């Protein structure tokens, strides 16, 4: 794994930040929820205590909390007893709170499907169900009457003519002034109905006056009919009742039953309904996302202000990121609403007259949380991204620097010697130390190599003086004249010193060639005659070898020093002669490449051993295993390389096909 990847992975550890952020957000959420719950409870308690003793607000007429010691009514009649009985009576109607306005059509569908809210009254086989509801300032009544024979009033007849009476529904109620009033519904067919009241005229005559404030609709059902009514609450006092006059045929005696006294149609039950002011009262606490509900002790909703679904003041975070975060943070199954309830007591705090429930959507704090979370996660993600990027960039630069160092160290050993100018040596960090270490090492190595390189030359130079002493002494001795026996030794000593001199010349050859190259002048010349002329010379110099030339017909113009080229050929041919058997043909070839003139010298003989071709052209490389009288310092091919490089070219060696010999290829730039 590269350093880049490693550091990138390290950088990815900063992603712990968002994770920690999510955890923090969750904790924050539960803390918020707890706090919200507490504050909601205190809100509920505050509102509840503001409602303490306000039964006038909770209920339209305060239920008479009378002394339980009051002697019960003497009247046996249940209805009459209920009339005075302040305690809940079976004829009390408790309207439910409607969430929407029912359409007056006689159908029950738009009413809440609340079976327990239905009240049933029966007499013999007769039975009706009543469902009452309040919407805003209207009382809605749904009557479901079981009736085998639905009898309508005669169309067009006086509603006061008993012979035309069909099934009638009486509504009895106490007006706001405390007076009992009754209206009746007499339908002449299914559809809209209007209530009518009976008024006594100035002279005692009775008239049926339409009561347009009480409207309704009647629909027949397979088992009877349904009547839906709407009565403004402002018309109604505390008491309310319904009486069904069930007639099997028009004008017949009815079977009367319901929650009114059948004899005088007086009410026996109360209409326990919240005051419309309660809603108004509650509305002052209205807040988006908040629901306030006041319920009667038995659990029936009296009033509520519902702003749960209202658009919140905080716009929810809609960004994809925010949703993504939410998915991360939200735990499944968390409730979206928190509730808090508080009881409402009477003035003496003895009796619970209702309860207040406050509900709040989670959105409130969810949004708060989401905001904080989004900001925080955005920030941490940004920090992570920056950290990862920075790490990556750092890693990349580190890798670049390292690879530069590596490349530099790989290429430090050049043909010219060792490169001591090393990259990164100016850096003040550890890499800089490494580079400086390398640089120092290379510097020392270079000094060493340089010393080795010049050793032969220096040695040659140093040996020359003592050798001169030896040779001049020998020559003097010769001139002085010695005995013939001593002359033999003298001759041997002279030969030895000559050989030593030859060695010295060979040792200094490379430095002399280097010097010659540095002083060489470049001229334009044709390579072909130079090679041919050199080949002629070799034929004379090496009669035991044949020399063949293979040159192009046209001139091969080069920029360079022909003397040096010939010297290079000398070294190559020397080499070829040494490694080829007597009588072998050495081929000198010149061919043209696009940007180079190629000189090849092929000689039959042993192939190049593997691995040597890379070193052949290095200074002091010796691959000869045979020993002859001539000194070899591995400088010949080094000189070839120096001359090739002077001509912006290169030297290479390879074995001939079939390992039948060796080929030296020199490219000279054109």
């Amino acid at each position, binding site marked *: 794994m590269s350093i880049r990847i490693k550091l990138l992975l390290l950088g990815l550890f900063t992603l712990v930040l968002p994770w920690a952020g999510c955890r923090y957000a969750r904790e924050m959420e539960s803390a918020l929820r707890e706090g919200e719950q507490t504050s909601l409870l205190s809100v509920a308690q505050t509102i509840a205590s503001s409602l303490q003793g306000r039964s006038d607000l909770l209920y339209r007429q305060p239920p008479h909390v009378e002394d339980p010691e009051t002697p019960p009514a003497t009247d046996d009649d249940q209805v009459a007893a209920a009339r005075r009985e302040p305690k809940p009576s079976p004829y009390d109607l408790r309207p439910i709170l409607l969430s929407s306005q029912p359409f007056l059509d006689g159908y029950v569908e738009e009413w809440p499907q609340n079976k327990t809210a239905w009240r049933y009254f029966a007499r013999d086989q007769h039975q009706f169900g009543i469902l009452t509801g309040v919407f805003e300032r209207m009382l809605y009544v749904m009557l479901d009457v079981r009736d085998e024979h639905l009898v309508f009033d005669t169309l067009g007849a006086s509603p006061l003519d008993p012979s035309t009476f069909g099934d009638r529904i009486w509504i009895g109620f106490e007006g706001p002034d405390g007076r009992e009033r009754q209206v009746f519904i007499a339908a002449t067919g299914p559809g809209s109905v209007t209530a009518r009241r009976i008024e006594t005229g100035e002279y005692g005559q009775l008239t049926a006056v339409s009561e347009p404030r009480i409207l309704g609709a009647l629909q027949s059902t397979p088992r009877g009919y349904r009547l839906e009514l709407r009565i403004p609450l402002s018309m109604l006092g505390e008491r309310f009742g319904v009486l069904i006059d069930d007639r099997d045929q028009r004008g017949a005696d009815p079977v009367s039953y319901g929650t009114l006294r059948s004899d005088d149609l007086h009410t026996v039950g109360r209409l326990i309904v919240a005051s419309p002011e309660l809603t108004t009262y509650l509305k002052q606490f209205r807040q988006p996302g908040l629901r306030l509900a006041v319920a009667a002790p038995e659990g029936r909703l009296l009033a509520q202000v519902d702003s749960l679904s209202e658009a919140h003041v905080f716009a929810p975070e809609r960004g994809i990121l925010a949703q993504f975060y939410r998915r991360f943070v939200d735990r499944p199954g968390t409730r979206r609403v928190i509730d808090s309830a508080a009881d409402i007591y009477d003035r003496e705090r003895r009796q619970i007259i209702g309860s207040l429930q406050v509900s709040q959507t989670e959105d409130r704090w969810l949004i708060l949380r989401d905001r904080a979370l989004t900001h925080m996660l955005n920030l941490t993600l940004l920090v992570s991204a920056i950290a990862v990027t920075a790490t990556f960039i750092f890693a990349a630069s580190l890798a670049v620097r390292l690879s530069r160092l590596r490349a530099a160290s790989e290429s430090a050993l050049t043909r010219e010697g060792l490169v001591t100018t090393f990259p990164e040596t100016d850096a003040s960090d550890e890499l800089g130390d490494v580079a400086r270490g390398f640089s120092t090492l290379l510097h020392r190595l270079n000094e060493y190599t340089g010393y080795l390189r010049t050793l032969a030359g220096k040695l040659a*130079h140093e040996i*020359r*003086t003592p*050798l*001169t*002493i030896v*040779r*001049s*002494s020998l*020559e*003097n001795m010769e*001139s*002085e004249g010695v005995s013939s026996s001593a002359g033999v030794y003298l001759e041997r000593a002279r030969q030895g010193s000559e050989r030593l*001199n030859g060695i*010295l*010349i060979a040792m*200094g*050859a490379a430095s*002399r*060639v280097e*010097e*010659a190259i540095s*002083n060489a002048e470049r001229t334009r010349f044709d390579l072909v*005659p*130079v090679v041919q*002329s*050199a*080949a*002629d*010379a*070799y034929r004379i110099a090496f009669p035991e070898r044949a020399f063949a030339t293979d040159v192009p017909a046209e001139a091969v113009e080069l920029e360079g020093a*022909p*003397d040096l*080229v*010939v*010297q290079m*050929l*000398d070294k190559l041919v020397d080499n070829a002669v040494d490694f080829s058997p007597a009588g072998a043909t050495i081929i000198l070839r010149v061919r043209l490449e696009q940007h180079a003139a190629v000189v090849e010298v092929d000689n039959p003989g042993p192939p190049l051993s593997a691995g040597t071709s890379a070193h052949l052209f290095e200074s002091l490389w010796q691959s000869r295993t045979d020993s002859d009288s001539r000194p070899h310092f591995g400088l010949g091919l080094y000189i070839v390389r120096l001359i090739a490089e002077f001509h912006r070219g290169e030297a290479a060696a390879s074995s001939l096909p079939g390992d039948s010999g060796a080929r030296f290829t020199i490219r000279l730039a054109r």
Partner: protein
Amino acid sequence: MAMKRMVAIVEDEPAIRDNYAAAFTREGYVVRAYANRSQAMTAFASRLPDLAVIDISLEEEPEGGFELCRQLRALSPELPIIFLTARDSELDAVSGLRLGADDFLTKDLSLAHLIARVNALFRRVDALRRPAEASQIVRRGPLTLDAERMQVEWEGQVVLLSLTEFWIVYALARHPGHVKNRQQLMDAANVVLDDNTITSHVKRIRRKFQSIDPKFDAVQTVYGMGYRWVD
């Protein structure tokens, strides 16, 4: 010979100095040997030698020989001076010749060769004192070679060649068109030199002629073989 010629040897290596002194003495020269420049100059101030053989590096002075040559040349413009050195680098040669040395030799030259040179230089000194002998003069077009005086003229102008250079030119110009290989040239010049030194001698010869005649092209290279003189 009326009076023995005096050869001064300035050489810091005592063994070489003494060997050379012995060889010159045997040849019949009066030899004065000095180890360093100050000794030599003190002696030269009172009496000039007839010829000086000077080592380039002298004791503490790596190039004391050059300085000595300059001082000696200031005393006598005619005095033949031969440089000897263990270093055979071209720079030394150039520097030495610019200072007016008559020849430049490496120490691996044999004593016989060295003495041949000294003799030749004395011959030259003598020849310069006599009128030119026509028999010794070779003419090749613009080239005039005086073998006795070891003097070369090109288009009537004297070309200042060192002794080695003169012998190379002489060897080439005597048989125009004949290729002389390096060995032949070395033999002619009484030196043992490596190929590169011969090459640089030839180059220097060409340059000296070209300083008189930029179109000079008489010394041709026959690659792999040697050189030839072309009229």
